[in-house]
């Protein structure tokens, strides 16, 4: 389900916010304010209690006393290092592959085949319609044996899972810059395609690429369905297996990965905001 969300993305929801003007007529209604406070209170309770409980459990020992033993013993726990490094390697390979595949494709489509954007929109939404559990079923059947024996099969499939939001992110980034003028300027100055892509397009796409990369890493580090069915002990699979041995350590590891994801995603939001601030300033001076 995680993949569904990325299509909508944090940025899109944020982008809509500044347009809403506060409506003086609304603020005059005291009933609305009480009602709002009640709703927000219950929402706050529902969303914060599990977070609190998860963190509390992570900082407790078997005797329910406050303790750092679970957090401290994660790194030295059996299997943690290999699982975590496997996940990191998969994240690196997936990210690299996704970027090499999608940056030129998205740029090319924007520049030369604008009519294909609809097709690309459709194809990149498919991984959301086809659930990971069904996709891995087909992949395990269709992949050749030598590939099935390698963990990097997962990286190849994760590229597909990452497509929806990576493409949307790059698409939005490309739509925001005057691609045609930039490329024509570079070409008329004698730049070749590769150097145009590298020196002109990439620097302008930095923010879009960063958000795509962060979302890809978050996806790979948290993916459980495919990894567990392909029988590779990635980080989330390890957490699950280890929970049978020590629930405190497993919960602590999962809360750490959650906080890590949170930090990663907040990077996008802050980059996104500074980027839009810069664009606004530039628009002001022009």
């Amino acid at each position: 389900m995680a993949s569904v969300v990325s299509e909508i993305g944090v940025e899109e929801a944020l982008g809509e916010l500044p347009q809403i003007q506060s409506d003086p007529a609304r603020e005059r209604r005291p009933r609305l304010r009480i009602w709002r406070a009640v709703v927000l209170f219950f929402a706050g309770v529902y969303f914060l209690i599990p977070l609190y409980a998860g963190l509390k459990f992570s900082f407790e020992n078997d005797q329910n006393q406050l303790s750092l033993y679970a957090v401290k013993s994660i790194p030295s726990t059996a299997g943690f290092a290999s699982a975590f490094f496997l996940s990191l390697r998969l994240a690196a390979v997936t990210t690299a592959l996704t970027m090499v595949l999608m940056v030129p494709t998205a740029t090319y489509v924007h520049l030369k085949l604008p009519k294909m954007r609809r097709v690309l929109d459709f194809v990149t939404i498919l991984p959301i319609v086809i659930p990971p559990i069904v996709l891995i079923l087909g992949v395990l059947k269709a992949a050749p044996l030598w590939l099935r024996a390698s963990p990097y099969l997962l990286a190849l499939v994760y590229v597909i899972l990452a497509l929806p939001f990576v493409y949307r992110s790059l698409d939005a980034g490309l739509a925001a810059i005057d691609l045609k003028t930039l490329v024509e300027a570079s070409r008329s100055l004698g730049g070749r395609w590769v150097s145009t892509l590298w020196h002109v397009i990439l620097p302008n796409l930095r923010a879009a690429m960063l958000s795509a990369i962060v979302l890809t890493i978050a996806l790979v580090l948290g993916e459980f369905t495919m990894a567990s069915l392909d029988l590779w002990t990635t980080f989330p699979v390890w957490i699950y297996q280890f929970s049978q041995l020590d629930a405190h350590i497993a919960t602590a590891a999962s809360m750490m990965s959650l906080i890590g994801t949170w930090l990663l995603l907040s990077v996008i939001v802050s980059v996104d905001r500074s980027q839009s601030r810069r664009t606004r300033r530039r628009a002001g001076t022009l």
Partner: protein
Amino acid sequence: MAPFVIYTLLGLGIPTLAVIDLAFRSNSNRLTLSNLHTVVQGTYRVGFVNSILLATITSIVPGILGLILAYAVQTARSNIFRRLVATASGVLANFGGINLTFMFIATLGSTGALTLWLNVIRLNPWHYGFNLYSFYGVVIVYMYFQVPLMVLVITPALGGLRPSWREAAENLGASSFNYWRTVGAPLLLPSVLGGVLLLFGSGFAAYATADTLTAGTVTLAPIQIGEVLNGNVISGEEHIGYAIGFGMLVVLSITMILYGLVRKRASRWLR
């Protein structure tokens, strides 16, 4: 373009076609309908019914709650607060799988924090027949990412309701109820339906959370696929997994077609 086409064909097209193809093949590779026949009966039918029920509950209830929450946030004065909620929704909607499972075990498990608090006031839910590791446990846990997902989806639509429309209605003498009944609700309805359909798809396809929470004991279509892949299946029924997968694709395709239709309608006003 060519590398992209080749990659998606190999990584997405061929595996999907393989699932569809094998759904219609017997063990001796002959075309057959018997796999599909099997999965609409008995325990596999229960799996589909439960999955659709789960997806329906966890799309309609979080759909309504998400709408109310989004509206409450939307009408708040503080800009910082709205940004905070948008970011939090983005993060929470991405929750799922193992992390969510552990958080809820620590909350509502038999010795979870909330369970113990409720126990103090003699309302321990486990004493009243509640079981976190069951169908209804899965429902409660799914809300945790479905409600934020709805907030994310519906916030732009709420922002598209222009204050001037409301003022126009009020100048014409409409009460708050009149405004919602004749202007607000009809405008929002397609977006709300779209959001609910998206939640349905997300709840129907989810595997990791339900599997880790119930250790695969709850009868849901995705979990049954996992069982087949893990080899827990009667010999001779290996192709059942593909037939379940095909069934899931059919349900999700219908959902997404409806979603496309609804979105077309929604974009008429809210742009």
